[in-house]
């Protein structure tokens, strides 16, 4: 019995948002009399952090502290239409809608402040800490709370904003496939190290080195969470999971987590992540969407690493010990390559 080590590489890009567009998102933003903002959406927070990333985008755009903003989602009576949380579209589409809604609300807030300060609204800036002041003259200042109170109780203004982001639906040429799929792509590269046991056929991923380009990491912790979890999912797709182990036969379909296998904490490989940020022209503060693409490079990197380790090409996922052993048997044993 010998354990063979191998390395495999893959690189990918990933389209952000629904293919061909036609997937609008809307947002409503308003302030209460204390200058505290509510962002109303119907986006779904699946755990990816939709509420948190839109909250940061709203606070940034409004120019107020994060704790002055809460996101309310998803109630169809109060949240305006959104296409949904899929296709890596949430941050890109909804983020832009929130920016637009926040800009409109901010403008009213600045006009209210301008009236109180008796200056031009165009000369005002926010400090992000709850104050509005004249650019270059920090002493001529009013709090966002005072501006909101003045707007609502003295001036009769509603500090609110509406936002929508839509890339209109485009068409596909049936003859050539010419189309405008999306406006921006995320990127990734991945090198995994595996160990293959030539007696049992078991494959263990022992290390992952990755680089992910995400436009802008709007919240670095949320990005890391997506990349770490997504790469785990990719590793699981590569070497563990399937609902139909003998596809296309439907036999032996698992019905619970005792038979539907996934890596547990003890199976996790150290994953060294590098995050690159090349802002998307039309992304919210340049953001793309890291949620889906993080899994994709792991699948091919694992099969390439198995080949590097023992010379067996597994072209049908998942990489099971059975497939590895059959491959080893067919070629008369391991043929380590160590080419990478």
């Amino acid at each position, binding site marked *: 019995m010998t354990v063979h080590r191998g390395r495999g590489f893959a690189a990918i890009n990933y389209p952000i948002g629904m293919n*061909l567009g036609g997937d609008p998102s809307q947002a409503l933003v308003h302030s209460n009399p204390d200058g505290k903002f509510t962002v109303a959406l119907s986006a779904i927070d699946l755990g990816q952090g939709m509420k948190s990333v839109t909250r940061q985008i709203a606070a940034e755009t409004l120019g107020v502290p994060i704790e002055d903003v809460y996101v309310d989602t998803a109630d169809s009576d109060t949240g305006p239409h959104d296409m949904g949380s899929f296709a890596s579209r949430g941050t890109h589409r909804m983020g832009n809608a929130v920016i637009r809604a926040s800009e409109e609300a901010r403008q009213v807030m600045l006009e209210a402040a301008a009236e109180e300060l008796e200056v031009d609204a165009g000369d005002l800036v926010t400090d992000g800490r709850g104050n509005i002041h004249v650019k270059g003259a920090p002493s001529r200042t009013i709090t966002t709370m005072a501006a909101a109170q003045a707007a609502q109780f003295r001036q009769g203004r509603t500090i609110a904003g509406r936002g929508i982001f839509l890339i209109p639906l485009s068409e596909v040429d049936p003859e050539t496939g010419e189309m405008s799929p999306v406006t921006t*792509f995320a990127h990734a590269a991945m090198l995994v190290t595996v160990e293959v046991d030539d007696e049992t056929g078991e494959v263990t991923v022992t290390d992952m080195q990755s680089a992910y380009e995400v436009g802008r990491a709007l919240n670095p912790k949320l990005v890391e969470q997506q990349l770490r979890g997504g790469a785990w999912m990719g590793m699981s797709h590569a070497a563990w999971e399937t609902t139909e182990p003998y596809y296309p036969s439907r036999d032996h379909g698992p019905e619970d987590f005792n038979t539907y296998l996934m890596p547990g904490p003890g199976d996790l490989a150290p994953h060294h992540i590098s995050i690159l*940020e090349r802002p998307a022209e039309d992304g919210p503060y340049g953001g793309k969407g890291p949620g889906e*693409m993080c899994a994709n490079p792991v699948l091919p990197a694992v099969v*390439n690493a198995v080949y590097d380790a023992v010379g067996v090409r597994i072209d049908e996922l998942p990489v099971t010990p059975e497939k590895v052993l059959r491959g080893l048997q067919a070629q008369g044993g391991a043929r380590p390559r160590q080419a990478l």
Partner: protein
Amino acid sequence: MRDMTSDGPMVEFRKDLFADERDDNLNEVGKPTRRQDILGHVTGRSPFFDDHLFDGLLHLRCARSPHHHARIRRIDTSAAERMPGVVRVLTGRDVPVNLNTLLSLLDFGLDDEPILSENKTAYRGEPVAAVIAETEAQARAAAAAVQVDWEVLPHVLDVEEAIKPGAPAVLEIYPENKFVYHGKYDHQKLRYGDVDRALAEADHVVEGRYQMSPIEQAPIETCGAIAAPEQNDRYVCYTSTQALFFSLGTAAKVLSMPSSRLHFIGGTVGGGFGGKVDSVHEPLAILGAMLTGRPVKYAWDRAEEMQVGAPRGAERWYITDGVMADGRIVARKFTGYFDAGAYTRLSSYAIIKGVGHLPGPYTIPNVHADVYCVYTNRTPATAMRGFGITGVDFAIEAHMDKVAETVGLNPVELRILNAYRDGDMKAHRRLAKNCALIECAQVVAEKAGVTLSPQMKAASSLRDGGGARAELPRHTATDQEGRVEGFTATSYARKGGGDSPPTTAPPPRPASPPPAASRPSPPAPSQPAPSASARPEPAPEQATKKPARSGAMRFSSLSGFRRR
């Protein structure tokens, strides 16, 4: 910035790269702010759909087909109705509009899937009746007591078997087991340059076949919904959906109800990964609440989530590359088969998305693809993380490894050599911008100690793209293979589609070598040939019911913005 330990940092931000394209002077964006809802999540207080357990809540469970493919001679619910705790048993007759396709929300595709099947089932686990009872155990017991007189039909499970002449027809409206694109072809084409000529001129030809497995989305919270009568003659629906208005629109359509009478609440979901888009639970839970006047919960158990819930579909890809001795890829040809399972759901969309993604992140002057959405007698496939992309990226990147070995290049250098750069023309005929593949590959190579040549180390996404690489091919080889008759184009596909379909198809070109398999095949025995003048009739059992809709429906009209 870079905390290099002996094993390297677990996470690093390469702020040095693309620094001049970013303004990093922001207040809130870019901060690792703790999520707004985390305290509720970690203390078990965040309300998920299943936390809305109303007094008097009823439970709905479905009776399902045990066969891959079977005709329903008779459904007898009388024994189930007499079981303890049973309040009501629903069959297809109770569903106001018992035929839908999710993509009607996007004007795409024909209604093909019953909510509760009445005449035929096309996969093991397809629902034929829904039992509503006082407890989940009672509903489960009564669902097992629903009697169905089945006539088992021949079935097909493999995508390439399914498109052979004489294969059992999974769906009557697509008798050749292939979705129809643009009302015109039985697959989606990508044609860019002349692949066959470039393959003939290449130094090496590298071929491969790849199979992506079906995968369960495996959220911790299984899919479900709880509906209840609300005041003002409305219904509230708490749901685990990933797409609130998509599910609301689907329910409004299936229940033939103005969207204004539906109040959907969700937004906090225990994982989705694509498996919570299909809007299967909301319509039945609301229908149950309508017909019983009580709150109704419909949720999958884990076994249903894994075997009845739509998985990531399997995909099979054939790739042929033409490569020069120096590693430049000059031609890439794909034949792809998406296993949609028994109904379309979202697979037809994923294929267009996949075709727009080809040939991967590389600048290749000749690209050709035929991609088929194939029906088989298995659980319908649906979205999953990376939908339309993950499977083909597996194929492409496993194939790149073979290409690297063939030409004797380091696999990382092969990627950098062929990577797309700003200003390059892509196979879907749009210019590339905002590229970063090369930089990702370089960063990984550096970290992992892979030696790159000085030229590959110096390569950049920002340089050496465009120019001649921005030009469209002088000649693109096109063809009429896979032409179908009898379908009309809708939306996505209007361009060049069937606005005025010719009465006779142009003569097909000689078939290309396998596995293209795009020859017109005769209809399966006992299946009517598609009419040459109109879209196929709906299945007979549907013809006597209220038509689902007279034409394609826009999402905006479905969600009520135009209806009132």
